[in-house]
């Protein structure tokens, strides 16, 4: 891992630096970032990793290159991360796209494309554009990074002027989200019965976002939606004779998110709220359906940030999430609601254009976003419900 980060830093120094990119060579523009953080919380909860003990396994790094000519643009970014048990410092292709944009109102992008969702999903890894260490986890769960980050497929996009200083940004996509068994998403969708997944995936993903840039300067309103078709997973019940394979699949895992952002002077206010829903069919492979699980997740946050001067920026948010499940099976299964409230305050210091430091404190009411996995059980009854999380992070952007 150290060699990977070292190579990325060496490349940035070699190419020089500016506020936007590491530099360019024959019209090819290079850039990237390296970050390292630390997380620790009071009590015994382990949230994004082994945070009760203090955790340095919290870093991301990326390097990208882009080239544009005429109406065409190509580019790619490699990305690596370590967040507790996830990422494992393995480099992967974050995005790799070819764009054709013949006009302001219409463009096409294909390849591995960043997923449009809400105000900030596409830029979740870009620490340098916000004061927060952790984005509101109700909407932007860091453990779902791989699931949320990008899809393989195509997207149409554009900006349509609708008169009187109003315009609409649209993005519509179709493809699939590659998923790994050792990803955070595999655990996230496995909290009802923590049995080891042997498969997780979907047939297709489709969705998009629509943002109205209103005639009120700085105000934009948006709606994002996505559907993952035939999304599901298989699990082996190792404790049972013959180790039968248990499946859980839904014809459509649906997500939607409403967004509003108002930027005035050095202030940025944001609010987002929405939910996920899915009706899973449950059973054993080769046997009749054993019933259904109706899952609903509601989430939202409100945030404010202010650039104080050239060096300092502050931010705060309140974030809320609640996940509920209703089972309709022969067995009388009652699942608890998973609820968590998060009040956060952050401060950011920019040493220069390229290097920044952040400090953040969270007060958590509830423990609904703690994972209980086969490898690391944290049953609900053993969790602290009132706890504080501290986060520190530094990022070098080139």
């Amino acid at each position, binding site marked *: 891992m150290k060699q990977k980060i070292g190579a990325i830093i060496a490349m940035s120094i070699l190419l020089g630096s500016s506020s936007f990119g590491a530099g360019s060579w024959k019209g090819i523009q290079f*850039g990237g970032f390296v970050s390292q953080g630390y997380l620790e919380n009071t009590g015994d909860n382990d949230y994004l990793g082994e945070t009760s003990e203090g955790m340095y396994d919290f870093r991301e790094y990326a390097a990208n290159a*882009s080239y544009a000519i005429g109406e065409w643009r190509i580019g790619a970014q490699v990305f690596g991360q370590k967040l507790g048990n996830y990422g494992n410092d393995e480099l992967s292709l974050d995005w790799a796209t070819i764009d054709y944009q013949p006009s302001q109102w219409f463009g096409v992008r294909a390849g591995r494309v960043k997923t449009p969702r809400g105000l900030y999903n596409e830029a979740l890894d870009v620490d*340098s554009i916000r004061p927060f260490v952790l984005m509101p986890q109700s909407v932007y769960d860091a453990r779902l990074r791989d699931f949320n980050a990008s899809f393989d497929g195509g997207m149409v996009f554009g900006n349509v002027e609708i008169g009187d200083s109003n315009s609409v940004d649209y993005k519509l996509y179709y493809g699939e989200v590659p998923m790994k068994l050792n990803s955070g998403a595999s655990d996230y969708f496995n909290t009802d019965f923590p049995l080891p997944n042997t498969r997780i995936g979907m047939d297709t993903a489709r969705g998009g976002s629509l943002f109205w840039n209103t005639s009120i300067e700085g105000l934009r309103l948006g709606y994002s939606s996505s559907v993952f078709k035939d999304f599901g997973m298989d699990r082996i019940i190792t404790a049972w004779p013959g180790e039968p394979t248990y499946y859980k699949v839904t014809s459509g895992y649906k997500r939607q998110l409403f967004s509003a952002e108002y930027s005035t002077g050095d202030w940025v206010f944001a609010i987002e709220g929405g939910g996920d829903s899915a009706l899973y069919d449950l059973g054993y492979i080769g046997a009749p359906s054993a019933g259904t699980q109706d899952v609903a997740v509601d989430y939202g946050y409100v945030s404010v940030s202010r650039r104080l001067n050239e060096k300092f920026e502050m931010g705060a948010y309140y974030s809320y999430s609640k996940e509920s499940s209703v089972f309709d099976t022969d067995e009388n299964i009652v699942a608890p609601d998973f609820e968590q409230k998060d009040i956060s305050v952050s401060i950011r210091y920019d040493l220069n254009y390229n290097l920044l430091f952040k400090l953040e404190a969270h007060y958590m009411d509830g423990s609904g976003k703690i994972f209980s996995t086969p490898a690391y059980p944290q049953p609900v009854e053993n969790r602290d419900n009132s706890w504080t999380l501290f986060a520190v992070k530094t990022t070098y952007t080139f």
Partner: protein
Amino acid sequence: MMISKLFGVCAVAAALAVSTASAAPVLIGNSSLDGVSLSDSDIQAVLLGKNVSLGGKRVVIVVAKASDGQEAFLKSKIGKTGSQFNNHWRKLFMTGGGVAPTQVAAESDVVSVVAATSGAIGIVDDSLVGGLPVVGK
């Protein structure tokens, strides 16, 4: 005596007025963009990367690292501070949404890079325009 004082005051006022007028930032373009005239909404679309070509040329945005005129122009035309403009482009650049502006040290460098780059635009004081076309103001 009074007349000469009044004349002096008028002369200073006229000089200040000229000075203020010459401090107006404008959007200049490479000679390949001669004849292009952008409305406020066109300027906004180009500076935010929503429109990537002008006059059949790929737009290359050239910005000075620090410039009061550029800051005022950005605030007036796209409603963003320089810091917010940087963040906007960092977001696009890091997520596959666009090729970032070329950054140079000062406004005089903006003029020279715009002059040498086909499709380039940049924000400079109108006293620095020289022979380059003004595509927006």
